[in-house]
C-alpha cells in the first residue's frame, strides 16, 4: 500500500517536474555556495573552485591552532607589515588585491580582532589596523565586556530581564578560551546557503505531499477507497506513512547531496572549530563547533520540514483542497518576514517554525525564553516544541482522514 501511495505521488507529471526543479535547485544553490569561497592569487585575481579552495585552505591553515596572545600579536604584526607594503598603499585596486592575497591567511583572525575591538553592534574593517599589541591581550575579555556594555545600553537595557542578562554574560564567560582556529570556509559556506536550499525544498515538497490526502476526493476515488476493507485504517496509515516517507526521503537526499557537493569541493577542515572562531559566530552564546552547527541545521531543518509539511497534510486531509494545502508552507515560511517589523512580536517570531530552517542564523540571535527561573535560547525551544508537535500531529492526521 505504501509503495502504491508513493507511486501515486511520483507518477504525477507535475511532481515529476518537481523532481527536476529540485535537481536544478540543488545544482544552483551548491554552485553559489561553492563560489562563495574565493582565493586571491599573487597577481590579485580571485579564483574559485576545488583548486582555489584547497589553496586557500593551505594558506589559512598556516594559522591553524589555538588563538593565543602570541598568535594575536603575530597577526597584528604581519597585518601591519602588509599595510606598510607598496601594494597596500597603492591606489590601484589590483595592487590592493595583491596585498590582500598576503593577508587572506590571517584574515579570519584579523576579523575576530575587528569584532572584539568594535562596539557590540558595530563593525569596522580597519579597526584591527589600530589595535596595539598590548591592547590585543584583552581580546577575549573584550568579547564579554562588549556584551555587558551593550546590555546596559539604552538599546538593550529593557530588552532583557536581569535573569536573561545574567544568563548571556554567564554563557559568554563560560566560553573556553583560547579558541582553536583552522580553515572552516567550507562549513561556513555550507551553513550560509543551507537555509536557502531547505526552504526551497520545503516549498517544492509541499507540492508532493499536498495531494496525498485530497487526491481521492478530487479524482472522486474516495468512495472506493473508504469502502475497501482497509480504507479506514491501514490504507489511511499508508497515506500518512507515504507523506512522511516522501518528506524524509526528499529532505535527506537533497540535503546530504548538497552537503557532499559543498564539503567535497570546499573541504571538511574546521569541523571541530568553535563557531566563535570565525566572523559570523563570534557573538553567539551557543558553544558549539561548526560540525555541531551543521547537525543543528540538518536536524532542525528536518524537524521544521516535518512540522510545516505535516500542517500542509493536515489541511489537505481536513479541507480536501490541494491548493490550500500547497499554500501552507508559503504562509508559514513567508508570513514571519512580513511580521518582523512588529517588535512586540519578536518573542513569538523567534520560535516560529521557519526558524528551524535557518538554524545557522538562530544560533547567532539573542532570542531568549524564560521558563520558571531558567533561561534558554531559542534553539532547544524550537527543536523540542516542533518535534513534539510533529509527532503529536500523526494520530490527528490519521483521525481526520479516517473520518
Amino acid at each position, binding site marked *: *500500500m505504501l509503495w*502504491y501511495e508513493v*507511486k*501515486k505521488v511520483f*507518477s*504525477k*507529471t507535475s511532481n515529476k517536474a518537481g523532481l527536476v526543479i529540485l535537481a536544478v535547485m540543488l545544482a544552483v544553490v551548491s554552485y553559489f555556495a561553492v563560489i562563495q569561497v574565493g582565493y586571491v592569487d599573487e597577481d590579485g585575481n580571485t579564483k574559485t573552485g576545488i583548486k582555489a579552495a584547497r589553496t586557500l585552505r593551505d594558506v589559512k591553515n598556516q594559522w591553524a591552532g589555538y588563538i593565543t596572545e602570541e598568535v594575536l600579536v603575530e597577526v597584528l604584526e604581519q597585518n601591519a607589515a602588509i599595510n606598510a607594503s607598496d601594494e597596500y598603499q597603492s591606489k590601484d585596486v589590483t595592487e590592493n588585491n595583491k596585498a590582500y592575497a598576503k593577508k587572506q591567511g590571517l584574515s579570519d583572525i584579523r576579523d575576530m580582532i575587528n569584532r572584539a575591538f568594535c562596539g557590540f553592534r558595530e563593525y569596522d574593517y580597519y579597526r584591527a589596523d589600530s589595535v596595539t599589541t598590548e591592547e590585543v591581550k584583552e581580546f577575549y575579555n573584550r568579547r564579554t565586556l562588549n556584551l555587558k556594555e551593550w546590555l546596559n545600553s539604552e538599546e538593550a537595557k529593557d530588552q532583557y530581564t536581569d535573569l536573561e542578562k545574567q544568563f548571556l554574560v554567564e554563557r559568554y564567560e563560560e566560553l573556553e578560551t583560547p579558541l582553536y582556529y583552522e580553515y572552516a570556509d567550507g562549513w561556513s559556506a555550507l551553513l550560509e546557503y543551507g537555509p536557502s536550499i531547505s526552504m526551497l525544498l520545503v516549498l517544492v515538497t509541499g507540492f508532493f505531499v499536498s495531494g496525498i490526502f485530497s*487526491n*481521492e476526493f478530487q*479524482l*472522486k*476515488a*474516495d*468512495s*472506493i*477507497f*473508504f*469502502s*475497501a*476493507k*482497509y*480504507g*479506514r*485504517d*491501514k*490504507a489511511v496509515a*499508508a497515506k500518512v506513512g507515504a507523506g512522511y516517507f516522501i518528506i524524509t526521503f526528499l529532505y535527506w537526499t537533497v540535503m546530504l547531496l548538497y552537503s557532499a557537493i559543498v564539503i567535497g569541493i570546499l573541504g571538511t577542515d574546521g569541523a571541530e572549530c568553535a563557531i566563535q572562531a570565525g566572523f559570523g559566530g563570534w557573538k553567539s552564546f551557543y558553544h558549539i563547533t561548526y560540525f555541531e552547527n551543521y547537525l543543528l541545521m540538518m536536524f532542525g531543518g528536518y524537524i521544521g520540514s516535518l512540522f510545516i509539511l505535516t500542517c500542509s497534510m493536515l489541511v489537505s486531509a481536513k479541507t480536501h483542497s490541494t491548493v490550500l494545502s500547497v499554500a501552507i508552507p508559503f504562509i508559514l515560511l513567508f508570513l514571519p518576514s512580513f511580521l518582523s517589523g512588529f517588535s512586540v512580536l519578536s518573542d513569538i517570531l523567534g520560535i516560529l517554525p521557519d526558524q528551524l530552517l535557518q538554524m545557522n542564523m538562530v544560533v547567532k540571535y539573542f532570542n531568549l525564553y524564560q521558563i520558571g527561573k531558567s533561561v534558554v535560547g531559542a534553539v532547544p525551544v524550537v527543536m523540542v516544541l516542533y518535534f513534539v508537535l510533529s509527532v503529536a500531529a500523526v494520530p490527528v492526521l490519521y483521525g481526520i482522514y479516517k473520518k
Partner: protein
Amino acid sequence: MELKLTDLTKKFGDFTAVDHMNLTMTEGVYGLLGVNGAGKTTLMRMLCTLLLPTSGSITCDGKDIFKMDGEYRNLLGYLPQDFGFYPEFTVSDYLLYIAAIKGMRPAAARKRVRELLPKVGLDKAANKKMKKLSGGMKRRAGIAQAMLNDPKILILDEPTAGLDPNERIRFRNLISELSEERLVLLSTHIVSDIEYIANEIWLMKDGKLVQNGTVDEIINSMPESVWICTVEKKMADDMMKKHKISNLKSDAKGAELRIISAKKPLPNAQRVPASLEDVFLYYFGGKADEENVVV
C-alpha cells in the same frame, strides 16, 4: 448472507433522502429503479458505510454493518456512480492498488487481476494508463476493481451511465455473469438495464420504496392498462395532457401513442401487455422526463 434494512432513514437538513426503508436482501440481483434524486445513491452509500444513517439500522447476518467495520467491507464490492481513478496508473497498477487496500496479499492480488482482466475484456489494456481508456473501458476497470475481493455483496450505482448501447449490453451481460452466488444491488434509471438481469426490482421514489417484486409482479402491480392507438398529429398534444403516454411514434399517417389508462382512452385503442417501462412511467410519471427515463 442476509442484508437487512430496518426503518432506515437519512436526512440532509430538512431533506429526507431515504425515508424509513425496511427491506431484506439475500443472494440474487436486486434492481433499484428510480428517477434522479429518488435516494438511490444515498441508500447505496449507506450500504457501503460511506454515510451514517440518521436513524434505523443495516445489519449483515444480524450484525450492525457499521460496527463490523473492516469485516463488513471485506464482503463488499462497490462501483460508485461517479467512478474516479488514478489517471497516471496503468490498469494493472490501479487494480493491484485497490487489491492492496482491500487487504489482498500481493501474490493473490496479481493472480486475481490476471483472472479478471480477460473477464472484463481489458487483458490487452493491462499496461495502458487509466487516463487513456475509453468510457466503457473505465467502467469495465471499475467493475473489475469491485470484483477483486470476490465480494459477497456487490453494489453497482448507475454502472451503465454514459455508455453507448453496445457497451451497455456488454456491461449488462458481464454483471449477469458475475452475479452468481452473491448479492448484487444495481441502481439505475435505465429500465432495460435491469429488466433482464434482476431477480427482484425495487421502485424507489422520494426516499421511499413504492413497489418491489419480480418483473412480472411489478408489472402486475400496476392497476391501469396499456393501450396503443393512432391519432392525428394535432391531437397528440391534447392526449399527452390527458393521459400518461409511455411512447409516441410519429409517421406520415399520424402519431402512434402508447397510453397508460384505467379506461379505454379512445374507441380505436387496443389493449397491449404492459412492460416494465410502462410501470416505471406509471409510478414516476410526474418526474419522468427525457433525462430521467431511458428505455
